[in-house]
């Protein structure tokens, strides 16, 4: 026993002794450009022995280990390096680390694209910005009109992008098309976006050159993604000068449901504030929506349904006389999508959307009564597979089917007809994103479509490239062919037409540093096969053809800066030169929705002492063309320029109650969008003019929002 003890003692001593043999390990850590890296962690694998490199990249430490060891050199955004060898050879090492590929730091393909996202550095707008922009009053479209590349057309209210008219933009929610993204309206009364911004976690607004995943849009796509999960259980009440709203959210372990209902009536408001337009019955709407989300083990299901009924009755001057328009609209929309992770970085998306819109319009004029009833049913079915092969290569491919059925019944004392059509568009698409390096990336896409109604098959290529010049600057380009079916105004009378075409060329420069972003984009766009018709307006006996063409070119500039404490602002400026021959234009001219210069300045200021956010937005556009039949030249007159200064104030009474006040066109500038003329000349031989003006010069909004929830930290500030 004694012997064994002394043996053990000896062994222990031996172990202890050997550990006193210290080895020095030293070296220098640099990047590929021989610049020293400080703060790298250098250690022997499986031990605690190590050091960090100093500001010159040097390191040294000692270890009691012997024999073959592995030295690990790790530093955050660099690939970890391991060196194996005899420990006594780890002296004066020269270690070069190569940069890790980091998708967040890499170049971004963003020509033509504006993101309003949550995490992406490429996003120029945060979701909150949409709702806190003065003048928007919760309308997504108005907020988007403060971005360059858009035209604000006050009498229409819809999105006009880079020389394209309102029909050239398609709206998608969770990848699925929205048939009727705007509220129903009649001429010269602006429509609003149908969706409330609260629903979405992010938006991507493309002013051109967009992905092959999206089609049937000549100019632009607006892609909005709904929230993946509800925040928490609560009840939200809104009391507004225009109506009332109630919302309820309930969460379970894996699922959640949100229900909203609202009622709007402009009557009380219009009786207080003088209107330029006479409403016999005010705008009224009753709407309900439901959102259901369910998280599965490897998937996420989202179902959104909405229904609304709206109506109004308005007296409008038209062609020198007046007519009364009575409109009733019923709209149902359902959108359901499912994303499943198949493992091995494969993702499957499947979705369906269905829209049903019914309009019941009655026109009463001196010449008699007209009754127009129309029904549109639109389906969109889509499936998509995506696979990330490495950090650098991603592939998307899929197929989709659009089905639209349109029926109209037109009745007047003189005539009755019932135009209708059913259109089916089947498309397949594929797109690859490749990062050649951290600084160079490409996106190559192809889209093939079969149009059953117009009996056409075609392929549209899309291509984007981006190059990062340095840490703060990058350039990108995009090219693509885009097609779109003629709108229902044409298709209901004539199906012997072909798809309209546009080609986009875009060059983009972006500078971003900390909270400053400068984005400048030049583009050229060519239109072919635009729709034309004969006669004063579209009727069943017009002659239709694809004889139109045109171009748009311009520069868009966006600047946003967050350097000032509590102040946030952005400036957009667009210059556009665009002409087209389409509709019943006798020649190629600049159309009436184009203003050559557009400027928006948006600012938001947080006043801590008042617990308030104040916002000011200024919009300017130069005059737009209109046609004066008293002049021999077509579309040669120009309206005066447009100015509007908008103001809003959000005051947090306490954590759960917010008071919100907004005034559009504070200065009361008398804006004129253009002129309409009588159909026939008067006794003096002149056509008499009528100015097209907003319904009221100023618009006031007051709202009180109240959130009742278990969690006292939440309020509706994000809902304003």
């Amino acid at each position, binding site marked *: 026993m004694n012997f*064994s003890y002394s043996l053990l003692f000896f062994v222990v001593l031996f172990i202890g002794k050997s550990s006193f043999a210290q080895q020095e390990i030293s070296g220098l850590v640099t990047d590929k450009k021989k610049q020293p890296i400080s703060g790298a962690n250098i250690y022997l694998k499986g031990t*605690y022995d190590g050091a960090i490199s100093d500001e010159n990249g040097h390191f040294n430490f000692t270890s009691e280990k012997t024999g073959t060891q592995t030295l690990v050199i*790790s530093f955050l955004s660099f690939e970890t390096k391991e060196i194996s060898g005899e420990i006594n050879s780890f002296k004066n090492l020269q270690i070069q680390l190569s940069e890790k590929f980091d998708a967040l730091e890499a170049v971004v393909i963003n020509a033509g694209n504006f993101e309003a996202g949550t995490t992406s550095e490429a996003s120029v707008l945060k979701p909150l910005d949409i709702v806190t922009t003065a003048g928007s009053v919760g309308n997504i479209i108005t907020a988007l009109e403060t971005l360059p590349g858009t035209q604000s057309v006050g009498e229409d209210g819809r999105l006009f992008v880079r020389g394209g008219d309102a029909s050239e933009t398609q709206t998608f929610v969770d990848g699925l098309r929205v048939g009727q993204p705007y509220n129903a309206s009649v001429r010269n009364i602006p429509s609003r976006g149908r969706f409330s911004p609260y629903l979405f976690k992010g938006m991507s607004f493309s002013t051109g050159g967009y992905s092959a995943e999206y089609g049937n849009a000549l100019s632009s796509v607006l892609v909005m993604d709904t929230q993946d999960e509800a925040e928490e259980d609560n009840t939200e009440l809104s009391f507004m000068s225009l109506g009332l709203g109630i919302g309820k959210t309930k969460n379970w372990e894996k699922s959640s449901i949100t229900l909203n209902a609202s009622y709007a009536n402009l009557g009380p408001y219009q009786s207080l504030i003088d209107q330029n337009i006479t409403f016999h019955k005010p705008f009224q709407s009753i709407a309900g929506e439901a959102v259901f989300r369910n998280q599965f083990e490897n998937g996420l299901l989202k179902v959104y349904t909405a229904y609304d009924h709206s109506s109004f009755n308005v007296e409008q001057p038209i062609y020198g006389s007046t007519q009364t328009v009575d409109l009733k609209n019923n709209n149902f929309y359902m959108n359901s999508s499912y994303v499943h992770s198949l493992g091995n970085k494969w993702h499957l998306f499947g979705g369906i959307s269905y829209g049903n819109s019914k309009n019941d319009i009655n026109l009463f004029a001196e010449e008699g009564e007209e009754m127009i009833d129309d029904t549109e049913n639109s389906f969109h079915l889509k499936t998509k597979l995506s696979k990330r092969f490495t950090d650098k290569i991603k592939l998307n491919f899929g197929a989709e089917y659009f089905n639209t059925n349109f029926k109209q019944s037109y009745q007047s004392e003189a005539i009755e007809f019932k135009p209708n059509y059913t259109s089916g568009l089947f498309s397949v698409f594929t797109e690859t994103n490749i990062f050649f390096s951290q600084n160079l990336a490409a996106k190559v896409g192809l889209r093939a479509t079969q149009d059953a109604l117009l009996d056409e098959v075609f392929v549209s290529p899309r291509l984007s490239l981006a190059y990062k010049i340095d840490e703060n600057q990058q350039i990108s380009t995009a090219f693509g062919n885009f097609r779109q079916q003629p709108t229902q105004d044409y298709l209901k009378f004539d199906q012997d037409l072909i798809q309209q075409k546009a080609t986009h060329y875009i060059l983009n420069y972006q500078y971003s540093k900390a909270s400053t972003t400068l984005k400048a984009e030049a583009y050229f766009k060519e239109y072919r096969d635009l729709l034309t018709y004969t006669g004063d307006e579209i009727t069943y006996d017009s002659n239709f053809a694809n004889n139109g063409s045109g171009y748009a070119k311009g520069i868009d500039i966006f600047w946003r800066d967050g350097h000032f404490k509590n102040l946030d602002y952005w400036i957009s400026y667009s210059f556009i030169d665009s002409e087209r021959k389409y509709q019943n234009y006798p020649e190629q001219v600049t159309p009436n929705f184009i203003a050559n210069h557009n400027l928006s300045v948006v600012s938001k200021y947080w006043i801590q002492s008042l617990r308030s956010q104040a916002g000011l937005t200024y919009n300017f556009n130069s005059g737009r063309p209109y046609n004066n039949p008293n002049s021999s030249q077509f579309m040669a007159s120009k309206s005066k320029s447009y100015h509007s200064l908008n103001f809003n104030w959000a005051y947090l009474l306490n954590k759960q109650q917010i008071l919100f006040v907004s005034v559009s066109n504070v200065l009361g500038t008398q804006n004129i969008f253009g002129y309409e003329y009588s159909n026939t000349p008067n006794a003096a031989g002149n056509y008499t003019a009528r100015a097209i003006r907003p319904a009221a010069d100023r618009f006031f909004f007051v709202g009180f929002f109240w959130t009742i929830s278990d969690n*006292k*930290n939440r309020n509706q500030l994000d809902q304003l």
Partner: protein
Amino acid sequence: MKTIIILFLLTVSEVISAQNYEEAMQKAMQTWQEGNVETASAIFERVAAVEQENWLPDYYLGLVNTTAAFSTKDKKVLEVQLKKAETALQSALLKTEENAELLVLEALIYTVKITQNPMVNGQKYMPKVSEIYAKAEKLEPKNPRVKFEKAQFELGGAKFFGSDLTPICKEIEASIVLFDEFENDTPFYPNWGKDQAVEALKSCKN
């Protein structure tokens, strides 16, 4: 005989390794206390790389970087610290079940983000942080750090809205009692926060 020797050797080497772990952790803690965040972080990182079953080195790696990030002005350094903290938290969660200490760390990481950019991150992460504390409280209702950090977080919001601070101060007071009662035998188990709570209570009463 041989078995005994081998067994003994094993025990000895285990003792040595345990000593090494303790020494390394001790050294890291000391370095941290001396204010050398970068070195402390590097030591915790090395220990975490060796300790495949022990979440504590990862926890401290995350905590060192998170607490440092609260006062970091340089945006680049801040990004590095946040990234280290987030990676460490994820690594810790691979080694153990979710626990209150790790939830507090997660909440603190989000709080850094909120304080660094309140305009953008405030509305995004405020509900998230509340949710995390609620979860932690459910998991370990007696954990003093949960109680204190939760109250501390609510204090900011209450000051902002000018509402009554009394109930929050009471929570901080209650956390001090929990700090005194808190016990865990695991070496290096989180045991910080009492000093801050005492300080916070002082300023709370003013």
